[in-house]
């Protein structure tokens, strides 16, 4: 029979203990085991970026990791981005203000990609912004409004 492996994972500041089959993708673990469905699954082969989460602070594609690999690691998903239930994160505010989403499917992946990017690059050029989001596909916006939002978010995060 297939293995079941115990793991302990910290997600959005909460520690979870579960037993997982090795082949369970981290994206499916987050969505189906933890019911955190803000992490979206688009292509499931590392192209679209919708499933991007922060793994020990670094943006990675959760569909290209197995849940068992997250044992002992710290994860942040889009549910953990806002400071509290009544306020949005500055990047979320900026996306709202600049109309940087239409259907919203890709948005969690963009937000999680951009958080560490803007923390490390507080005043990015447009070229740097486009490079930063090159691994995230959006089929609605044409990206211009997303780039606008990143500029606005950068200003907000400076304050």
């Amino acid at each position, binding site marked *: 029979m*297939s293995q079941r492996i115990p793991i302990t994972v910290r997600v959005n500041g909460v520690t979870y203990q579960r037993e997982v089959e*090795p082949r369970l*993708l981290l994206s499916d673990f987050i969505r189906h085991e933890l019911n955190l469905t803000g992490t979206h699954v688009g292509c499931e082969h590392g192209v679209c970026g919708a499933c991007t989460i922060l*793994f020990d602070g670094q*943006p990675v594609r959760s569909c290209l990791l*197995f849940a068992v690999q997250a044992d002992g690691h710290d994860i942040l998903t889009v549910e953990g981005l806002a400071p509290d239930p009544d306020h949005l994160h500055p990047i979320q505010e900026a996306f709202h203000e600049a109309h940087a989403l239409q259907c919203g499917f890709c948005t969690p992946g963009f937000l999680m990609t951009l958080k560490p990017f803007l923390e490390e690059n507080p005043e990015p050029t447009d070229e740097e912004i486009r490079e930063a989001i090159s*691994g995230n596909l959006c089929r609605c916006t044409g990206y211009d409004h997303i780039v606008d939002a990143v500029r606005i978010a950068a200003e907000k995060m400076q304050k």
Partner: protein
Amino acid sequence: MKPPPFDYYAPETLDEALALMAQHGYGAKALAGGQSLVPTMNFRLAAPSVLVDLNRILDLSYIRTASDGGLLIGAMTRHAQAEKSPKVADTYPLLHATMPNIGHPQIRNRGTLGGSIAHADPAAELPALLRAVQGRIKAQSARGSRWIDADDFFTGFFTTALAEDELITEIHLPPLPAGSGWAMQEVARRHGDFALVGVFAVLKLDASGRCEHVRISMFGVGDGPMLAETAMGVLRGEKLDDDAIATAAEAAAQKDVDPPSDVHATAAFRRHLVNVLVKRTLTQALARAAGQEVTA
């Protein structure tokens, strides 16, 4: 779109990993960054019965200066580490310039140099870079270790000289010849995607201004990284003026490659790109060899 079942091991030492590879043999796959292996498992193009996860072996991740002045890089070094490494930027500008072309930021945070080389995608940058600089790959197994020249390592489509119980543990990038120039260019539909065609060039002139050393390594045009042997032969011993470079580029496109046609590009377009990119990389490498600043 879900991987088939497998048994999972996460050794914390290299010795344990090598023992697992020896024990499980052909059915076992090493899991490095997983940025190529996991998609192929999700598509069920690969169905290993055992995964040996190398991510807990922390001492396979390093970038050191080699005794010859080049670099020794641990196999589990992530692309992002090499991309951001001041040592790489200072001592190996060719590698530094190459890193941002490998995948996207999220992929570089996870993908490893050793994994990319072991995977041997014919459209990947690092295998072609290794051939351009005559790098070496250290393969280890429970039986011992050996160094394999990059020219002997890539044996075919996604195929390498690694035995089924061997792991890549280190790569060696020798220093470029003193006074040489280098360049790297690729064309991809979307920046960070696998290139349609890419070219590395390294060259050096002798005191009389003739070509003393040249390596032109191409990716995306065959079943592995390929040298443009005919083009290199055209250039050796010659003055590298525009005519010589154009002749070499034409030779590379017409004689050194037999590129595939696929949904991304026709064979004719790939040949055209080989011609253009060989010309550009040789021109840039020549400028760098002459001490000129070259911007992308």
